[in-house]
């Protein structure tokens, strides 16, 4: 279990700094370092098992259905990286404490850094491909946050965006590759995948897998042609550059190559794709490192070059090359982190990173200069430093490879050229900054940084020397363990030594060293050569291409979505016609086997009236009031149809809703134009009429087809269980408040939300109020007719009584919360109409919004109540549990739920209509009134 701690401790640790304050910086740094130290201890504790040859593992289920397990392992490769991440991470925590200015938030920095560290540890320890990918994306995200740490700077934001786009896009490719790999192997378990090399490489999808995985790795490790994001990521604070963009995150790509080496490597495709990309990147980075003026720009390009070198080694078909790659990962991390730290110190002390302005710094900061010299020599590959050893190994292996066949000599030759360039830029970096003449005028007066700030650099420089002088003692065990994890079969025995005798690689090294120094002194020729080319800024190109993409997409969206509702409706209808009409043509015949029921005169009359009124609504639509009256006839006939076909609940509901809808539409019509102007020409009318006719035809056919076919309904269950299970004789109501109570809860919530939305829409609405009707007649002066007032007065108590009656009997006879609520609402609305808003406002002093919300609350609480008794949400009390002495409980819960429905319906309906009505009076809802 403690293996998981290595990942989880930094993850938890990312929360700790958030509680710290920026004033107490030492405490903050200590709190951040603590989980890192413990994780390092745990890793070292397990390291003995790993070195002894076993692989400690832990696996927990996470999402088993997807094949995603929380599985971690600590094999040799993981161990190498874990030590690297945690070790350098600790040094960076210390360094960052002094690097960041007092104005920069240290807690925020540490929180992001720890999140990144946890993600990185997750990648290297994951024992499951999907888990690996999860952490992979997490590093992209946390790196985005870290690069954009100084978010007030535009280049930091742009650099962060670019890094996220490139690495995030690569991450998606990687996911696709992993999914394919999982399909081929049948599992995402890492060990199984690594053991299935033959199966994977024999599969036709192998090349696709390889390309996708390589895209992921190459974008992350800034390989050509994706190298452009890394120099722009240098807008990050220097500790971030040292940690993410030299030692760890960019190594995730090469780690992945090493991790999947047993499964994917060994093919011709791997050899060519990986090695040649690596070689290309090696040369590209080294050349541009020589040309840059920004300290961090040089280091970034040199990092690209060294990552290319490692990629080249991992691609070669020589076993020892892989070991060399691992060794160089270790060496590069130490010297490059040290160099970044000195670059940060120089920037910090002098206020500039431009090497044209810097020289002779060794006089004022000898210690920093010493670290830079040592790390620079390691980078150049000078003997007695660690860089020399891995470079020597690299040169040896390039001689061994079968790559390019007859042109195979090109590989060692180009590798030597790369080394030569590397020597040249290393010399330039160190010599130009720290030596090369007297101290110039600088923005700040430089002096040696605080001791604890330079200490991590000194430690790393010391490691460079120790590994360089006694490599067998310092690195053999770790490398051999790591090599065991990467190579299939017996790992080659390692003989790390400084002296291998006079041989070809030594000669190549010598050529590189001497040639590099000469190139440095003759560098103005290179600069002159480069001036012939137009300089191109990758960021400008990137931003421009992103904007072109956005514009193209916007254009596409605009051409599809032009804001015309009529057009959307048209396409929607055409789609329906095609889909449903197409499906109907597949039916053998429209009419099913059921016999038709007989017609009677009442039915024909009803249908005739409905069709006539419907057609009149459509035809007379330009005379809005008439059209509305016709509509109400259709509603009335619909309600009668429900009654005719044995659905009294529906008939009651429809009738009540009909009244409310008509009042609403009448009121709305008052505020809208009374007539519709003639707009559509003949062709448009014809087109719409044809579409409508087609749609009506399809609806009618579909309806007829269903009605004449036998029905298999699940309703028998509800009918059978209504009385014993729900305690009610009205099945419709029992379904609403019991069987499908959850649906009803959702529906009243929607009703309530719609009412609240309307309330907000009415807020500060600018109105057009006509002073006369469409024909110019003024409104009647008799606003509150006497007869209506007196009738209403009498009806109100009666109506309320009826609604209570309907509500109470709802469970056993037609009725229920919906209908009772509507009846109450209609009765109160009648009052508003008869007496006017002012009069009612004075008497009904309460607001309707709380009533509607309370209704939803009551219904939800009733549902939650069943939890108290250990039953699922909304379990009706009836018949499920028996509390002694409380006989009537079974009715109570369903009725309570229905009460919620009732309150919501009353509240929502009146909220809509009363507020709409208030618009004609000074009581209209406004912001000012809300505040009062």
């Amino acid at each position, binding site marked *: 279990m403690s293996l998981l701690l290595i990942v989880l401790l930094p993850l938890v640790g990312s929360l700790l700094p958030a509680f710290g304050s920026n004033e107490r910086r030492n405490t903050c740094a200590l709190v951040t370092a603590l989980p890192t130290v413990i994780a390092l201890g745990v890793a070292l504790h397990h390291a003995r098992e790993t070195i002894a040859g076993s692989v400690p593992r832990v696996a927990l289920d996470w999402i088993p259905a997807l094949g995603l397990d929380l599985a971690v392992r600590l094999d040799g490769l993981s161990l190498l990286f874990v030590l690297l991440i945690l070790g350098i991470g600790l040094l960076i925590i210390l360094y960052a404490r002094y690097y960041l200015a007092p104005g920069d938030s240290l807690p925020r920095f540490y929180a992001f850094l720890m999140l990144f560290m946890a993600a990185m540890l997750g990648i290297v320890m994951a024992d499951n491909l999907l888990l690996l990918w999860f952490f992979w994306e997490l590093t992209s995200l946390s790196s985005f946050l870290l690069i954009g740490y100084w978010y007030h700077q535009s280049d930091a934001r742009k650099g962060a965006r670019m890094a996220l786009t490139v690495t995030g896009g690569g991450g998606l490719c990687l996911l696709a590759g992993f999914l394919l790999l999982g399909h081929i192997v049948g599992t995402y378990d890492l060990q199984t995948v690594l053991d299935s090399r033959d199966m994977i490489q024999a599969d036709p999808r192998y090349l696709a897998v390889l390309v996708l995985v390589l895209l992921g790795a190459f974008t992350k490790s800034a390989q050509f042609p994706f190298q452009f994001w890394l120099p722009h990521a240098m807008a990050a604070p220097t500790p971030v550059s040292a940690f993410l963009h030299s030692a760890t995150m960019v190594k995730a790509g090469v780690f992945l190559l090493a991790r999947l080496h047993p499964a994917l490597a060994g093919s011709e495709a791997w050899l060519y794709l990986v090695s040649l990309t690596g070689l290309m990147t090696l040369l590209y980075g080294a050349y541009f490192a020589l040309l840059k003026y920004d300290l961090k720009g040089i280091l970034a390009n040199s990092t690209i070059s060294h990552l290319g070198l490692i990629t080249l080694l991992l691609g070669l078909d020589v076993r020892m090359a892989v070991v060399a790659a691992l060794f160089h990962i270790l060496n590069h991390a130490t010297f490059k982190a040290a160099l970044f730290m000195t670059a940060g110190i120089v920037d910090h002390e002098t206020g500039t990173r431009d090497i044209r302005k810097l020289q002779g710094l060794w006089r004022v900061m000898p210690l920093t200069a010493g670290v830079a010299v040592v790390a620079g020599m390691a980078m150049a590959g000078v003997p007695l430093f660690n860089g020399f050893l891995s470079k020597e190994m690299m040169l040896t292996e390039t001689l061994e490879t079968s790559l390019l066949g007859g042109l195979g000599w090109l590989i060692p030759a180009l590798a030597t050229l790369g080394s030569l360039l590397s020597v040249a830029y290393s010399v330039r970096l160190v010599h130009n900054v720290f030596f090369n003449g007297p101290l110039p005028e600088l923005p700040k007066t430089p002096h040696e940084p605080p001791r604890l700030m330079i200490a991590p650099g000194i430690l790393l420089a010391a490691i460079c020397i120790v590994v360089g002088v006694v490599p067998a003692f310092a690195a053999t065990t770790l490398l051999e363990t790591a090599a065991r994890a990467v190579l299939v079969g017996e790992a080659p025995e390692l003989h790390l030594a400084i002296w291998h005798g006079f041989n070809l690689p030594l000669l190549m090294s010598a050529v590189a060293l001497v040639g590099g120094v000469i190139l440095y002194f003759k560098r103005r020729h290179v600069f002159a050569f480069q001036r012939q080319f137009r300089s191109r800024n990758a960021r400008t190109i990137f931003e421009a291409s992103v904007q072109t993409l956005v514009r193209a997409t916007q254009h596409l969206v605009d051409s599809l979505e032009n804001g015309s509702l009529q057009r959307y*409706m048209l396409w929607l209808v055409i789609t329906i016609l095609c889909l449903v009409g197409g499906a109907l043509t597949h039916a053998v015949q429209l009419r099913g086997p059921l016999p038709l*029921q007989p017609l009677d005169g009442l039915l024909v009359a009803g249908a005739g009236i409905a069709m006539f009124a419907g057609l009149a609504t459509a035809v007379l639509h330009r005379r809005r009031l008439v059209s509305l009256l016709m509509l109400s006839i259709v509603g009335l006939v619909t309600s009668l149809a429900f009654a005719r*076909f044995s659905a009294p609940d529906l008939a009651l509901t429809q009738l009540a809703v009909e009244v409310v809808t008509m009042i*609403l539409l009448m009121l709305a019509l008052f505020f809208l134009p009374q007539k519709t102007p003639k707009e559509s020409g003949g062709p448009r009318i014809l087109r719409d009429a044809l*579409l409508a006719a087609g749609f009506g035809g399809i609806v009618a056919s*579909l309806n007829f087809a269903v009605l004449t076919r036998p029905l298999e*309904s699940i309703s028998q269950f509800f009918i059978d269980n209504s009385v014993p299970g729900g305690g009610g004789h009205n099945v419709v109501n029992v379904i*609403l408040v019991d069987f499908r109570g959850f649906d009803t809860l959702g529906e009243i919530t929607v009703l309530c939300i719609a009412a609240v939305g309307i309330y907000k829409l009415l807020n500060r609405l600018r109105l057009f109020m006509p002073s006369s009707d469409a024909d110019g007649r003024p409104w009647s002066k008799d606003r509150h007719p006497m007869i209506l007032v007196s009738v209403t007065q009498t009806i109100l108590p009666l109506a309320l009584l009826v609604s209570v009656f309907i509500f109470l009997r709802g469970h056993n006879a037609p009725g229920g919360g919906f209908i009772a609520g509507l009846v109450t609402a209609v009765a109160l609305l009648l009052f508003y109409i008869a007496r006017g808003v002012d009069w009612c406002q004075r008497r009904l002093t309460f607001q309707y919004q709380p009533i509607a919300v309370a209704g939803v609350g009551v219904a939800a609480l009733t549902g939650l109540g069943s939890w108290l008794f250990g039953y699922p949400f909304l379990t009706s009390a009836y018949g499920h549990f028996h509390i002694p002495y409380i006989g009537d409980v079974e009715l109570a819960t369903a009725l309570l739920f229905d009460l919620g429905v009732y309150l919501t319906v009353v509240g929502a309906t009146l909220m809509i209509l009363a507020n709409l009505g208030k618009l004609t009076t000074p009581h209209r809802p406004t912001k000012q009134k809300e505040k009062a």
Partner: protein
Amino acid sequence: MEALFSITTGVLAACGLFLALRGRTFPVVVGLTLLSYAVNLFLFSMGGLTTGGAAVIGDKGGDYADPLPQALVLTAIVIGFAMTAFSVILAMRARGDLGSDHVNGNRLDEPREERT
């Protein structure tokens, strides 16, 4: 009877759709309401057309109208009302803010009427 019912539903749906394709908000709202009548009738008929069926268990026994479509349609009627209300008030708001009641959001195509 089935044929007549289907034709009625079809005609109502067609009229509703025709209105929904108009260019002004009020006919569109009326059309949507008409369409929702048609849809409710259609949904209701999915349980079959029962004449003289028992509404409540224990009434006469035997032939019940299918309660499930009824329950669905009952809530659909209420939600349909909420939708009508929302769209008509949205139409009012659009007219208030844009000065036009055209569904495509065209601005100000009519002289403002006097306010009271």
